[in-house]
């Protein structure tokens, strides 16, 4: 019987018009955002990118580019014209590097490996501002030593763009969770169905768990569909080339000696875990409030706070906790914030600690929700 209930709970979620419309809307929006970002990207021929493959991004390359570099209004501007069009892919990487290190960098006057020296200074300064202990600095230095410098250009548009898309994906999954699962338990109260369910044999205990399971299935399916709607265009057009290349081509301020593929796998895992956590929290709110609009409002309130609230560096503990939220992790804020989380005497990276935290939140939501569901009454 639980299998039959599960099947029908899935039907409620997958066949609900509002859920289908919301999912279709999200997929269309992401597809159009992805395709427009591809269309707006500098027209780079695959041949040019291939020709530059393996090119070291050093002073010599910057010297070669100087005729098309200008320093205007405190920013280095690249003019992709004439015979320099073939440099467009590497210019993109330089642009990303400058933006990440310091957008005021004047590349026109740089010689040798000054760009990497500037990066090193910036890293040291950030670690200082963030109040890292000597041990923590040592932890990062050890990893930074393993990062190859100067960076080497490799084609990476497909996986690189996908890695940058995770923050938007997380936003859409939260939105879809709010729309699709806010009614999981609340709609029964609004429609009066809880009168029938709560006096049925499996309506008090088993139904609660089955609804949660169906909610997780739904959110994971939705998360996968949303992910594919971004992955397919990027990999379809650019290919998967670059998956094994250095992470710093996408995240220049990262001190992790990882590849883009490694970080894609990590982000994908965090993304799925975050989706499950959003679902658990949405369903918990649905049980507690027994009111769908109130649940949606609560989640939208969180979304706004998430987008606009940042804690300054001096609030170390608050900032540490705040940086564990899915949006921050998926934005890869760990690449510009180097605070470590210490658990059982061992240092952990943000995303490692976040995954433990998300699992704990899911378990807590399940248990709290179960207690609340047990005490539900009709017409109280």
């Amino acid at each position, binding site marked *: 019987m639980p299998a039959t209930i599960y099947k029908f709970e899935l039907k409620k979620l997958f066949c609900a018009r509002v859920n289908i419309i919301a999912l279709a809307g999200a997929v269309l929006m992401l597809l159009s955002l992805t395709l427009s970002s591809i269309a707006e990207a500098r027209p780079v021929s695959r041949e040019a990118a291939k020709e530059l493959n393996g090119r070291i991004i050093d002073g010599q390359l910057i010297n070669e580019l100087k005729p098309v570099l200008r320093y205007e209004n405190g920013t280095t501007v690249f003019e992709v014209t004439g015979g320099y069009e073939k440099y467009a892919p590497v210019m993109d990487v330089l642009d990303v590097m400058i933006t990440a290190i310091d957008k005021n960098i004047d590349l026109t006057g740089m010689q040798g490996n000054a760009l990497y020296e500037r990066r090193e200074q910036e890293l040291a300064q950030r670690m200082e501002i963030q109040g890292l202990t000597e041990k923590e600095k040592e932890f990062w230095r050890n990893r930074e030593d393993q990062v190859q410098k100067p960076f080497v250009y490799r084609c990476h548009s497909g996986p690189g763009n996908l890695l940058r898309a995770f923050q938007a994906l997380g936003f859409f999954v939260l939105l879809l969770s709010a729309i699709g699962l806010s009614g999981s338990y609340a709609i029964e109260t609004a429609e009066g169905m809880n009168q029938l369910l709560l006096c049925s044999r499996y309506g008090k205990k088993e139904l609660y768990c089955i609804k949660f399971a169906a909610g997780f299935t739904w959110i994971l399916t939705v998360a996968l569909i949303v992910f594919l709607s971004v992955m397919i265009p990027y990999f379809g057009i650019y290919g998967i080339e670059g998956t094994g290349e250095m992470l710093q081509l996408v995240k220049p301020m990262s001190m992790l000696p990882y590849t883009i593929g490694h970080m894609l796998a990590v982000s994908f895992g965090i993304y799925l875990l975050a989706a499950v956590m959003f679902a658990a929290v949405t369903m918990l709110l649905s049980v507690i409030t027994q009111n769908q609009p109130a649940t949606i409002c609560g989640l939208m309130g969180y979304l706004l706070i998430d987008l606009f609230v940042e804690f300054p560096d001096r609030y170390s503990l608050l900032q540490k906790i705040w940086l564990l939220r899915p949006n921050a992790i998926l934005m890869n804020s760990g690449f510009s914030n180097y605070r470590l989380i210490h658990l059982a005497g061992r240092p952990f990276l943000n995303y490692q600690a976040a995954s433990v935290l998300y699992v704990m939140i899911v378990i807590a939501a399940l248990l709290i929700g179960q207690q609340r569901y047990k005490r539900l009454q009709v*017409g109280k």
Partner: protein
Amino acid sequence: MELTADRITKQYKNKIAVDRMSFTLARGVTGLLGANGAGKTTLMRILCGILVPDSGTVTCDGMDVETEEYREILGYLPQEFGYYPEFSGRDFLLYMSAVKGLRKKEALKKTEELIELVRLKDAARKKVRTYSGGMKQRLGIAQALLNDPQILIMDEPTAGLDPQERIRFRNLIAAIGKDRIVLLSTHIVSDLEHIADRLMIMKEGGLLWQGEWNAAAGDLEEFYISKIGENK
């Protein structure tokens, strides 16, 4: 089998919905009469274990109403409730069968039987949102009977039914009540006149009168009005 309520009380803010009610329901049909707001629905919810009384107990042969065993033998038709718009009538009954703990084969068999019984065969595959009020009510009656309940509690079961259907369901309830506990509330006194073995009359949360009812004893409507009048 006996369903016993012992001094149950339920209060909402400053209104007492059920006031120290004690009674025992045995096999047969018990009619619950009372004006709007008399506390009938609250009482039925308490008997179903979906509303906890502030004080007092409800047990069935010593079994608490909050237990799974009790819910297994209970059928309840609330006065008003919604349906899942994505479900067809058959889906709804199959879903409720599963929640009530029926095995798949048994659920399929029972669903078909009840669809036939409530005359929804032609509409069984249609979405419930396309059903008329009367069809929804018949579907509600069907779900209450899915698990062959030993205790059947029905809040206004004939509301929305046409006269012909009302008579049919009245007879059906009378047949079911022969070997089960049936409690039904209604505004339509004539629905109870010929099938109720017992009557309970509620007023302002209290039990105004309870006792055996014999159809030969006279007109139920007059009896009900006289009881309400006596109390004034």
